[in-house]
């Protein structure tokens, strides 16, 4: 077991940031903490990386206790905080050398681990970190978190504010690191990234709502979701919300996801209702639920 968390709680000024959280991450697993801003993800990261003390509960990382063995943990984990935390005034190469030196290693010693990522930023190795674009900064930060060959890698919202192309590349990098035996705990507000994890914990307001493999979380979802579409999307949302038996109405890309309260819901009735409201180009069909649907209904 790479990470073991038991009943960890933490309050700031009487406000509970996380409340009796427990979960385990297996060796070599890619585990995702999925939840919005304010859910408590960063607090969990800071406690597990020994930067913050919990009020209650216990936890171990790579076999070390987060309180007693905090020094050992700091040597065995890599941590990429949500906020870019490298030295803006140092160049790409200087940042990397600095982090290697701090951990008593060299770039050469563990070059194999970072090679795939580093070659993408190497052409700009003399550029100061502050002048890099978002995607490149993120790659440099990952290199710095990996330079001492950590057993466990903590990535706090590595893809927030990152465009879809860079996000895709980033997840491909994570998969490759996982194959090299590194255990990864990653958090994200992007629900589509949840599907790329081995297991996920859905977290909201300081509590874990569900832990499972992404496909099981989707499989366990009981309600039927309908994709609804019409020419005037804004009016469609308004009218669906007025439909007497509506349970929820949410925009989902091209379609509106509609859930009805009644088990004997008949799509033809809804179709008639929308026609009466003068909608055109109406489409109603059964949809495949996503992690985001499940999350929103928790």
């Amino acid at each position, binding site marked *: 077991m790479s990470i073991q968390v038991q009943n960890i709680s933490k309050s700031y000024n009487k406000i509970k940031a996380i409340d009796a959280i427990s979960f385990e991450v297996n060796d070599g697993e890619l585990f995702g903490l999925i*939840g*919005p*801003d*304010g*859910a408590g993800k960063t607090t969990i990261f800071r406690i597990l990386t020994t930067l913050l003390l919990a009020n209650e509960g216990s936890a171990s990382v790579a076999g070390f206790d987060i309180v007693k063995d905090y020094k050992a943990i700091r040597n065995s984990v890599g941590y990429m905080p949500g906020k870019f935390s490298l030295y803006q005034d140092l160049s790409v190469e200087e940042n990397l050398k600095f982090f290697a030196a701090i951990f008593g290693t060299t770039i050469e010693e563990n070059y194999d681990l970072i090679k795939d990522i580093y070659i993408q*930023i190497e*052409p*700009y190795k003399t550029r100061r970190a502050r002048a*890099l*674009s*978002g*995607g*490149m900064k993120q790659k440099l930060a990952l290199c710095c978190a990996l330079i001492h060959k950590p057993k466990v890698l903590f990535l706090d*919202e590595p893809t*927030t*504010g*990152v*465009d*879809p*192309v*860079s*996000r*895709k*590349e980033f997840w491909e990098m994570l998969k490759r690191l996982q194959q090299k035996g590194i255990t990864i705990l990653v958090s994200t*507000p*992007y*629900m*589509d990234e949840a599907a790329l994890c081995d297991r996920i914990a859905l977290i*909201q307001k300081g509590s874990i709502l569900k832990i499972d493999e992404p496909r099981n979380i989707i499989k366990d979802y009981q309600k039927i979701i309908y994709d609804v579409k019409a*020419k*005037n*999307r*804004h*009016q469609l*949302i*308004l009218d669906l*919300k007025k439909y007497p038996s509506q349970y929820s109405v*949410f*925009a*989902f*890309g*091209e379609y509106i996801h509609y859930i009805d309260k009644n088990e004997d819901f008949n799509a033809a009735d809804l179709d008639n209702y929308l026609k009466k409201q*003068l909608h055109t180009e109406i489409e109603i069909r059964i949809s495949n639920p996503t992690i*985001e649907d499940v*999350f*929103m209904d928790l």
Partner: protein
Amino acid sequence: MNLWQEKDCFVPRNDNMNKEKIIEVQNLTKQFGNFTAVKSISFDVYKGEIFGFLGANGAGKTTAMKMLIGISKPTSGEALVAGFDVKTNTEMVKKSIGYMSQKFSMYDDLTIKENITFFGGIYGLSKARIKEKTMQLVEELRLHDSIDKLVGSLPLGWKQKLSFSVALLHEPKIVFLDEPTGGVDPITRRQFWEMIYAEANKGTTIFVTTHYMDEAEYCDRISIMVEGVIEALDSPKNLKNKYNVASMNDVFLKLARNVESP
């Protein structure tokens, strides 16, 4: 969200959108030394339109947007925003637009009320008008119990909804939203978009950037910037047809490349 249920409007938006140009961009260019961040881009945005401005990190979106809101001078080319030249009439540009971003929205150590008063003042609203607007926002966003709370203590989603309303205090013709929903929870993200729809229905033009590709589907038209140029500009439906893919995410992955500036 109560706010917009009261403002039902039964005119289909897309049909009603008259083709009055509110932003006109011609060969707009920005160079930093030898590096051209924005390469002669041209496009128009129409009144009441929700215009999605997409691109990879480093594609030149922020630079282009800065020129349009009058805080960065173009190297060459023209842009008219609400009829005002972004080179020579930046003060009128700023008066005609609202702006909010994920990074800067309001002052954390002022209360909600103080922020509204402050921004109302900045935009030159009279005291009576500020009072009226404050009351209106309290009603619409149901802030009765929290008006005297520090903005810093609010959840991100709340903050973003509030700062959208603050960006609209002076009833601008266009509002620029720079990644307004980054990190916001899925439900609040959708409520935010419902506010956007309601505002666009009133005729306000929305110019928005996002990295959520499901949100790209909510725009009337989308432009995708790649390495300083606009690589594609059309409705989400037409873009998907053109590239023969099922989602805007796939369109984006086909077009955008993540390239570092030289």
